[in-house]
């Protein structure tokens, strides 16, 4: 975790540095804000990982002499076949079509999108197929 | 599963293969060429054109020299690396099933091929800054004379869909045209005196256009709502074609113009002729933005359609 944290936080510091140089040499708003936003994008998770890496035991994947037995057990849960991603995608498609071709498509988009998101969340809670 | 046991029979080198002295010498020569070339050639007046224009303005000639130097450096560096790839591919093609030595790093070489590009880039950036300061140097806005007392001609260029308008505010002349009409079917012509500083004010009436003259080695966007300013010092007379380089709609490829460099006395004659034929600032109304201005035009003979209907349809 430490390497990941350093990597992200390092990027964040770099962008903060570049952003400040950019501001004081050009006073250009858009670029400055985007660079600062990028700095925050790196510092936030990077700082979080660094904070946690001191308080947790190392991941097996970060131990150079770990064996497969060390990693034995449940890795994670990986949801199997699920129709909800497809339906959420179709909801998003119809939402964009609504913007292009008119509000008459909105009921389809809302119906598809909302029900698909609800379905997906419920599936997560239930555990879903594996 | 246990770890495979280490084979300690041959020496473990954390550095790469020992390079024989001859190879080292070739490497040093290559490095010297790559770093020294831009410095030496800059002083040597060795400027092949590599297909570009040598420039008819003082600014354009500066740009050309930088371009030529960078191309030479690029050819040397790129050529060396390319030859190295070819050499490696031939020299180390598979001869047998012997396992090659499994080295994976060489700190001295890695430092070398990091430091050399840094040096090359530093030299290139140095020359870039020098050239750029000269190319974009301008007299103050609305100046009538330079610091040395020479006259400054101000020309305001307005780009529009799909033509150009050239106003001479201090001479009461205005020339404009669309697409491929104009002298020689090459669009409207901007006449400029050689040997004098010309201050250009560039703006667009609608979308972003690109003002580009190959012989000036220069281009700049014509932006709506923002006036760009740059200077031109044309060195000798001639006809210099130009074109719009930023996609601006249907007839983007037809948005031609020319620049004609003439002697100052010819320029004075031309000014008088234009005023006499009515091409004054009052002739062409200032168009509201985003409406096609009404200028003199002749349907160009080689256009695919007359540019009378402008937006969107064909």
């Amino acid at each position, binding site marked *: 975790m430490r390497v990941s944290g350093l990597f992200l936080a390092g990027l964040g510091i770099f962008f903060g540095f*570049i952003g400040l140089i950019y501001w004081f040499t050009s006073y250009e708003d858009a670029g400055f804000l985007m660079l600062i936003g990028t700095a925050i*994008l790196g510092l936030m998770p990077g700082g979080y990982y660094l904070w946690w890496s001191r308080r947790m035991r190392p991941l097996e994947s970060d131990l150079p002499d770990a064996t497969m037995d060390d990693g034995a057990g449940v890795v994670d849960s990986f949801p199997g076949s699920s129709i909800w991603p497809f339906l959420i995608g179709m909801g998003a498609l119809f939402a*964009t079509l609504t913007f292009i071709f008119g509000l008459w498509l909105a009921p389809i988009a809302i119906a598809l999108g909302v029900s698909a998101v609800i379905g997906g969340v419920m599936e997560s809670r239930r555990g879903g197929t594996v | 599963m246990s770890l495979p046991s*280490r084979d300690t029979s041959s020496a473990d080198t954390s550095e790469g293969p020992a390079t024989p002295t001859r190879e080292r010498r070739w490497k040093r020569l290559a490095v010297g060429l790559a770093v020294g070339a831009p410095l030496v050639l800059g002083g040597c007046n060795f400027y092949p054109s590599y297909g570009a224009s040598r420039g008819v303005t003082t600014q354009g000639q500066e740009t050309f020299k930088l371009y030529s130097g960078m191309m030479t450096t690029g050819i040397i560096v790129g050529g060396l690396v390319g030859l190295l*790839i070819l050499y490696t591919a031939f020299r180390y093609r598979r001869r047998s099933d012997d396992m*090659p030595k499994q080295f994976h*790093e060489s700190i001295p070489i890695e430092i070398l091929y990091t430091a050399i590009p840094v040096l090359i880039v530093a030299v290139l950036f140095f020359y870039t800054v020098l050239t*750029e300061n000269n190319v974009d140097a301008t007299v103050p806005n609305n100046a009538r004379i330079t610091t040395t007392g020479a006259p400054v001609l101000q020309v305001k260029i307005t780009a529009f869909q799909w033509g150009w308008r050239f106003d001479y505010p201090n001479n009461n002349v205005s020339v404009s045209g669309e697409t491929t009409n104009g002298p020689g079917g090459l669009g409207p012509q901007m006449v400029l005196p050689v040997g004098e500083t010309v201050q250009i004010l560039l703006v667009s009436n609608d979308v972003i256009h*690109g003002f580009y003259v190959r012989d000036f080695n220069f281009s700049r966007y014509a932006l709506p709502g923002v006036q760009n300013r740059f200077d031109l010092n044309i060195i000798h007379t001639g006809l210099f074609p130009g074109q719009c380089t930023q996609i601006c709609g249907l007839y983007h490829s037809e948005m031609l113009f020319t620049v004609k460099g003439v002697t100052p006395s010819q320029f004075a004659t031309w000014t008088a002729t234009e005023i006499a034929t009515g091409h004054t600032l009052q002739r062409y109304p200032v168009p509201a933005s985003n409406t096609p201005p009404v200028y003199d035009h002749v349907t160009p003979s080689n256009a695919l359609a007359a540019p009378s209907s402008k937006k969107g349809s064909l």
Partner: protein
Amino acid sequence: MTTTVETPDLIEPEEPGGPNGHGPGTHEHESEHAEHGPSGLLKWLTSTDHKVIGKSYMITSLVTFFISGAMALVIRAQLSNPSSSLVNFQTYNELFTMHGSLMLYLFAGPFAFGGLANYIVPLQVGAPDMAYPRLNALSYWLYLSGASMMTLSFVVAGGAASFGWVAYAPLSDSINSPGAGTDMWLMSLALTGFSAIFTGVNLVATIFYLRAPGMTMFRIPIFSWNMLVTGILILIAFPVLFGAVVMLFCDRHFGTHIYSVQGGGVPVLWQHLFWFFGHPEVYILALPYFGIVTDIIPVFSRKPLFGYRGMVFATMSIAALSTGVWAHHMFTTGVVLLPFFSLLSYLIAIPTGIKFFNWIGTMWGGQLSFQTPMLFSIGFLFAFLMGGVTGVLLASPPVDFMTHDTYFVVAHFHQVLIGTTVFAGFAGFYFWYPKMFGRMLNERLGKIHFWLLFIGFWVTFIPQYIVGLKGMPRRVADYLTSNGWTGLNQLSTVGAMVIGTSFLFFLFNLVHSWRKPVPAGDNPWDGGALEWFTSSPPPHHNFTHLPPIRSERPVWDYNHPEHHKDESHGDKRHREHEKETVGASS
């Protein structure tokens, strides 16, 4: 226990394992799910398996590649003659816009991070799947929707978008580009943009969290490192594009004046936002392909990668710097800070050079064999070398003034993009095809594909550099005979036709491999990364056994233990540990 391989349409190899099959238990796996889950179309619609999603992405993106390639051939045909009237101005403008858009938004990126990375990264880090399988599936459906929408935008009234793939305001506003085609273009960017963002999240999470035991960050293959950095770049860049697109949409339909001068807006703002996305985007496109080549060259040199840490550092530097150079696309606007962007653009040449020397260093002293993946990788090296050098020229504002928006730039970006996405992309496809489909592609056809492509590539683009220096602008539908550009344009068109022909051999190779399959086995190339340890194609959840992971090529260590010793680099703790156990373990 033997069971059927999971993909039902694959012809089962005669001998499990094939000519190079080895490794314990790679074919004994549980796939009761294949017998009980959905089948047919419903199986595809509901699949969350990264392998299925990866293959779907690759097929869809290759289809868009061929459609866009056909558009390029029409463009080249039009330009082979001055005043040609093969297509009219409106159609021509739509063609180059959609050629660029399909290639950049729908092929190059999705093929790399949606296709190859989705398939290969979990295998390389030893994970059973991506971190968020359903999000992965959603990414694909968003991509398919966006791709269909963009491709179908030709058929609406007013035609497709026609303002170039960069859509500068005010040309893209409602006055200058009315019509649903532009709106479909914008909305498809929203859909594919979110697809990319979700894939980026998945990549970062998978590589951070789902590595197998012992697979430390500095042991993951460089392809996966590059995909990690690409994932982060995606998270940096695509939200900005989405914001810019939403604002343009509002300008077009909801009466805002963000980009229009009349309402007090700033057209150049679009360029700042777009290029803040656009420049990292081209590195999002390039880095995966660098990673592919970095994985292929060591295998066909029979040596480890030279300078692993240098490669990681170089990739991170390229990504970091690339976020600060966006306005080098705006040098000619006259309103950006030239020295800042020029210096950072020059600096990117340095880590790129490091990568080049590391690739050469990997080949140096090796035993090189030139099968198709290696040929394509070397083709990439030459193509990107020249494209990269001309890029350094463009980092200089005065030189940019004389070449911007001319065919010089067109040649530059085609060399770098084709070098990466086509040469390196097809290198990766030929390299991993045996793993994905369990069968080999024909070597002779692959070599013909390569040589035709390589020759056609240079014949197409060298004349474009020359004609650009002669003054030919880009995005022009015709030109004058008096310009003197005809000969070079004709030569370039001939080259383009040769490139097109080369892909016929590729398609034929695909068909041939399906009708006359040659079983591949687990590790036909003697590769070192983890994906070569499992069967071809891998079973459900990828691995039944894993070798010990002590370097970035665990499968090589497992297969060639006597050639392992120079491998223990990069991890000081491990080296010391090894020294301690040398006496103990024999």
